[in-house]
């Protein structure tokens, strides 16, 4: 049986016209439709739609890709889905108003509880809460360093990046950034992170060890309200979802100067990259679509209709 799957994987890999390394799937939460859209990475078409619960937002995979987690905000829970069979496996209470989360290399989930001014840590196997960390108002973005030593939680109405040390789960530093920080991403070394500030229309590059901003860049015109940020594989470029500017802003990772603007759908918030770094998927909330960007050309190669107000996106490569 295992051999069969391997064979199938290899076959799909060889005949994949679009996403070279991803015979897998792209999962998208639709905030208003209360569903998760499942996109087949090979054909880039909708394969299935899962009824998930009220106001799904954050979405992520377990480190071994065997479980898909969805934050169902209005129902205060995380729903666990089998990303292969697409069956709902279980669910657990995840504190008040879970919005975004990130999965630690050890499998635990760090969640921002937007209306409770805290971050909580859950073991998704047992559904038990392991820790609770008091942070600022409206915590949103969660990022975990690849070595798992540090976690960033952004608090939107307190304008801070809270740097949390693990496994102690205590705040090591608080870094004031521009207004309404929404999202953060670590480099591979875990020493540098990028974060977006929505209202001030900025991206900051932060030395996480020294807790200092080392570069600030503007995402352009005043419509640009940056949300998600992701880093290219070679770490020379960052991609920023431009919100109501309806574009993805490509920036030099060092200078934070704009290299290119890629028009996508309306109110783009979510970004996810394929494992090989060749494709980026964007959620365009108002348009109800996902744009597929080829990072070689920095152009949109396909637009896929999903549910109402797509919010989060994650790529399962295999």
């Amino acid at each position: 049986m295992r051999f069969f799957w391997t064979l199938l994987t290899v076959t799909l890999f060889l005949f994949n016209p679009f996403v070279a390394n991803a015979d897998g799937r792209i999962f998208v939460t639709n905030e208003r439709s209360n569903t998760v859209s499942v996109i087949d990475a090979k054909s880039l078409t909708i394969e299935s739609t899962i009824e998930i619960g009220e106001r799904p937002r954050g979405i992520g995979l377990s480190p071994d890709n065997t479980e898909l987690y969805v934050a169902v905000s209005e129902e205060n829970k995380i729903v666990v889905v089998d990303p292969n069979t697409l069956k709902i496996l279980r669910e657990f209470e995840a504190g008040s108003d879970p919005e975004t989360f990130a999965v630690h290399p050890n499998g635990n989930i760090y969640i921002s509880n937007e209306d409770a001014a805290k971050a909580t840590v859950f073991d998704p196997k047992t559904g038990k809460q392991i820790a609770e960390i008091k942070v600022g108002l409206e915590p949103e973005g969660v990022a975990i360093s690849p070595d798992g030593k540090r976690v960033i939680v952004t608090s939107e109405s307190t304008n801070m990046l809270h740097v949390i040390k693990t496994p102690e789960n205590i705040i090591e530093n608080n870094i004031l950034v521009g207004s309404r920080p929404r999202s953060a991403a670590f480099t591979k070394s875990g020493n540098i992170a990028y974060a977006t500030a929505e209202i001030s229309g900025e991206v900051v590059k932060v030395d996480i060890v020294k807790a200092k901003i080392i570069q600030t860049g503007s995402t352009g015109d005043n419509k640009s309200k940056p949300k998600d940020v992701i880093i290219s594989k070679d770490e020379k470029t960052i991609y920023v979802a431009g919100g109501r500017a309806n574009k993805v802003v490509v920036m030099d990772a060092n200078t934070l100067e704009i290299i290119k603007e890629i028009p996508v759908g309306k109110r783009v918030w979510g970004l996810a990259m394929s494992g090989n770094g060749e494709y980026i998927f964007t959620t365009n909330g108002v348009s109800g679509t996902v744009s597929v960007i080829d990072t070689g050309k920095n152009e949109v190669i396909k637009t896929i209709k999903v549910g109402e107000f797509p919010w989060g996106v994650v790529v399962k490569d295999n």
Partner: protein
Amino acid sequence: MLIKNIRFLLIIVMVVSSNLNAEIIEVDFAYIGHEEHPALLGVKQGIDESNLQGQFLNQKYNLEIISENKIQKHNFTKYIAILTTVKSEELKNLAKKLTDIPIFNLTDESNELRINCITNILHITPSSKMKADALKQWQTKTPDSKANPQSWHYSFKKFAARDLNKRFKKNYKTNMDDYSWAGWAAVKMTSDTVARTKIINAKNMLNYLKTKLSFDGQKGSDMNFRVTGQLRQLVLLVEDNKVIAEAPVRGIAKPPTLESLGILDCSK
């Protein structure tokens, strides 16, 4: 021996500097007005949120409530800002008395106060002209609509307004209205400035707020003040207890769209 001494000195320096870092900055606000006014609830919400931020930065925010009849004898030197619901002549007199302190006008909508450009009054509440312009824009698009122009509404959800409405209601068991939003915004923009700049002197605060502010009022755009002292902001159009539109109205207002609402200049 020398090395030992240097080490010892270094330890002393480190201890002293870490103590300095740990020193708490205390910031005092004064509210002048009725204790039952909804603006005061917003002020309190703002103080709570400022203290939540302050716990990470060693900053503490205090509020004193001063009744209108005690203004004359009160010593105002320690306050970073005054938040008030007093109107017209009383507001002008207050501004004359306290020239170097930011005075946040939370309730008075008169156009005249904006035209006068009184240097230390910051109008959080939109002027009548701003509201009238908002309605006019909306009615150009939908002539039969009898919507009410407001600066805030509890049904407003966009731009994280939903979150602010939710936490206010949780704390005070009542909906956030225009006045409570104004009280909240005044405190929050001041404490944001303290957090970012460490300014704790009222005169410097006034100068910063008037010239360099970039504030997230949970109404979308980045907020700052006009020369008139008026806070630039969008105006909500409310019908049947629901926000039905926002002004500047898209397709009607000319860019820069926020300047299509209200008075832009001082009287000569």
